[in-house]
């Protein structure tokens, strides 16, 4: 689970370097694996480097220069162009959709996970089974009925149209990860809460919520990333430019400025920048978040 992963990533390196090195074969370096590891790092980084330096080039520079050389005089013109193309609006839309989906999704998933762990009723067992089944449903396959429901609710072309299905699709994994975490809370703590006269609702918020905080952050980050980067729901459920989220805006921006590659790449950098900043701040939790869902 996520805590295990966090500890694993954070501490194993410091705690037992000798043992592990010996484990890998008497100190001899793993040449083949190492080579693959570093080569792949180059493959990963070259396109990213190219995207970043090109976004600072003028269009003339882009056509004339060696693509891997940084521009002699970096220009911010491309970024200016992107920002002037309603980037702020799309950014705000993405923030609204992501926050509006993730906060309710995580809270109701947390409540459901708590109920599933705390009760042994057959009803809640089958609810849990239903959520687990949901993990196997591909989002795209249900998009047509979702579209129909959104039209009938008169929500087509609104941000709420993206938010409602996003909440639903965040639930299965969130409940799975959170219930695994709540299960690890020692029974004695629940018992002592009960002896003190607290009911389940109080126990939920005063005991389980603080103890599950790392998992809550993890689940929020994981789902947040999925919603922030989501493309299909905005594509199908909205229409007007003022309702675009960033991934959709990128796509239409390329359609519009396709020839101006530096500007297109500046838009790629700008849409990714918020996540990269968050990654720099909360790297550890993000790493655990991305692997946690597959741990149990």
């Amino acid at each position: 689970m996520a805590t295990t992963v966090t500890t694993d990533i954070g501490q194993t390196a410091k705690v037992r370097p000798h043992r592990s090195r010996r484990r890998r074969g008497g100190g001899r370096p793993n040449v083949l694996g190492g080579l693959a590891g570093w080569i792949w790092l180059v493959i990963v980084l070259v396109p990213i480097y190219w995207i970043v330096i090109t976004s600072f080039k003028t269009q003339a520079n882009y056509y004339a220069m060696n693509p891997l050389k940084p521009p002699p005089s970096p220009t911010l013109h491309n970024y200016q162009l992107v920002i002037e193309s309603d980037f702020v609006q799309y950014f705000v839309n993405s923030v609204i959709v992501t926050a509006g989906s993730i906060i309710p999704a995580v809270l109701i998933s947390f409540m459901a996970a708590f109920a599933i762990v705390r009760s042994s009723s057959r009803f809640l067992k089958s609810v849990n089974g239903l959520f687990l089944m949901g993990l196997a449903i591909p989002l795209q396959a249900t998009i047509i009925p979702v579209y129909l429901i959104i039209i009938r609710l008169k929500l087509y072309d609104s941000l709420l149209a993206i938010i409602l299905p996003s909440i639903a699709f965040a639930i299965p994994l969130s409940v799975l990860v959170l219930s695994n975490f709540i299960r690890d809370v020692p029974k004695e703590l629940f018992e002592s809460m009960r002896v003190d006269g607290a009911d389940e609702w109080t126990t939920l918020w005063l005991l389980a919520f603080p103890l599950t905080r790392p998992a809550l952050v993890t689940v929020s980050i994981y789902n947040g990333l999925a919603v922030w980067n989501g493309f299909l729901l905005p594509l199908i459920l909205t229409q007007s430019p003022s309702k675009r989220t960033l991934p959709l805006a990128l796509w239409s921006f390329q359609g519009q400025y396709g020839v101006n590659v530096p500007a297109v790449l500046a838009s790629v950098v700008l849409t990714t920048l918020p996540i990269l900043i968050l990654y720099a701040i909360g790297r550890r939790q993000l790493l655990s978040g991305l692997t946690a869902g597959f741990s149990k």
Partner: protein
Amino acid sequence: MTTAVQRASRTPGTSRVGGTGSVTWMALPALVFFIAFGVVPLFGVLGLSFTQWDGIGEIHPAGFDSWQKVLADPGLPHALQVTFLVMFLSWVVQTPASILIGTFLAGQHRYRAVLAVLYFIPLLLSSAAIAVAYKALLDPNFGLGAGLNVGFLSQDWLGRDKLALAAVIFIVSWQFIPFHSLIYQGGVRQIPRTMYEAAEIDGAGRVRKFWSITLPQLKYTIVASSTLMVVGSLTFFDLIFVLTAGGPGDATRVLALEMYKTGFQANLMGPASAIAVILVLVGLALALLLRRIGGGGAADSQLEGA
């Protein structure tokens, strides 16, 4: 705090709804949401596959018309073929590379942390962003290959059938190999050290240890990682849609794209729903198959901390 207590005192009324104790109601909001936008659409798509609908007007029942149309259309076997090809190739490319890199990452501690940080960057980018960037990067006239004057790289990657498919596989690998490497790294770390020590006493070399200990011990990790790859490959819609829109021609038109084009571009929601049902069935069949290979529930316990 006080609000929590006050609210709690209001709950007995609601708790009777579930009829099974005082916590049942807490699961209801999630349940309602999931049923409304998950379960209902899942059955809805089956229902809609027996109707005729253009996406705007009235919905008319149409019996098996859509199914007949879809099953007779040569587009379906083609889309299935492309879907499985993408699935197979992305698995074949990613799995050996991920195991190799993951094993390396598990052992080399000095650089491992740095590598892990950088490895994760592609996973943070949206598929749309990746596709937009690669579309420019692979441009045969002005892209990276053309600018560097490398003949091999400056081919018309997105303009030829086979090359476009190769480009999709490469970009998918670019995006996900780092992630799977980290999964394998976690798996390798879980292998008991004593097994290697025993093998060393028996005089086993590195290669022998890899084949006789590491690989068999990674069985459940391989199943988990493969499940993610295979089921995940059904959801490459965003990437392919932005990168090639299924083209050139229909060379990269996977099932999900076939569904989108039928439903939202040709306005044939009935047939599109039938394709969606096939998509669900393929996904479920694969998930079950991989679960069987992995020995069912055993996979779950083995994967802790992966």
